[in-house]
């Protein structure tokens, strides 16, 4: 390969080929390209920036160690694989017993309609974040991937190792649950 090639112009598969050969510059370029999205996803799933950083750090180490096994057959995308690793690490982390820092625990919000009248936008977002956090794990992941990361149901299905119809079912159930949990703010929004 030409040594003068601008690494940042190379595709993911080409960079992974170099990573497999021990090229740390290619690894840095690949990580810089995908880490921001991976961090956002991990933080949405974990609700904690520090935990998200650790998860993505571990996922990047797995990219290095697993690069040799990557087969660039055009069917699988590196970003999908990375997101799958991140999601699995997030699930593992959430299942571990944790002693949360008191500063990370959001203030409890009264979800009654009368209280919702008083909340400003910030409090509303806190309420929505709490409702999202209360969703069952796979429903929350489906919303995070499809709504916030704007993945298609097909991509989310690959990340979650599910069928497309299963992801669509998770999305429908998640939105139903969110509508029920956020009934107060939704009424206020309609009344406004």
């Amino acid at each position: 390969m030409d040594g003068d090639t601008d690494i940042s112009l190379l595709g993911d598969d080409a960079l992974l080929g170099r990573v497999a050969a021990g090229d740390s510059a290619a690894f840095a370029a690949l990580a810089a390209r995908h880490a921001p999205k991976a961090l956002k996803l991990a933080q949405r799933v974990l609700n904690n920036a520090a935990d998200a950083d650790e998860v993505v750090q571990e996922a990047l180490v797995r990219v290095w160690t697993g690069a040799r096994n990557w087969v660039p057959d055009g069917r699988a995308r590196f970003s999908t694989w990375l997101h799958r690793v991140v999601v699995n690490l997030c699930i593992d982390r959430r299942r571990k017993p944790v002693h949360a820092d008191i500063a990370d625990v959001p203030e409890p919000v009264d979800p009654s309609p009368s209280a919702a009248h008083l909340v400003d936008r910030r409090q509303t977002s806190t309420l929505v974040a709490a409702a999202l956090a209360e969703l069952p794990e796979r429903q929350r992941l489906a919303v995070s991937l499809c709504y916030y990361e704007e993945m298609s149901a097909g991509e989310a299905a690959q990340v979650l190792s599910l069928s497309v119809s299963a992801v669509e079912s998770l999305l429908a159930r998640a939105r139903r649950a969110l509508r029920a949990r956020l009934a107060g703010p939704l009424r206020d929004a309609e009344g406004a």
Partner: protein
Amino acid sequence: MAKTDTRILKRLIGRYGADPRRWPQDAAAHAPALAERARTDADLARALADERALDALLSSVPEPKVDTARVDTVLALALRDIAVLTHEAARPPAPSRHHALNTSPWHRLWQALGGGAATIKIGGGKLGEWARMGWLAGATAAGLALGMITLPQPALQSAATTAPATATTIAGADTGDTLDAPSLLFSPYAVDTLGASAKDARR
């Protein structure tokens, strides 16, 4: 037909929200029908308003802040972990636990007897095995010889000084098959001595 379309539209907004831009590509063909149908179908219009309000609430959650410094820190820590992994992979293997723990005197004796000798193939055989067997055979022969030299000595000396009758018996035994250790142990002298000791005890 119109009823089916409404059901499809309700299913789409129930999964992907009220914004057709979030719908799957293969569902984009239904997008123009949504606003049109909502004007005439009150049920669909209400469902659309609900989903639009939910979309607005979901959008109120701020996006996690990911700046360059944060990405650089995560990358640097990952590279540190990779360097540690690479260093560990390049390090020669540590001595086995079996080797490290086997420091007992018996193990050292076994080693001295050739137990730990490197196995070298010679003519289809193994030098280590032969060395081990040689040491074992030599050690066994040395042990037997030592036993035969030391065991009869006190008996002969005491016999010569205590009783002539028994001394001749021992002399006879001595001129016989002196290498037969069991015979020496259960010789007539030994039996007589045992009998005399028993008589003395009765007295």
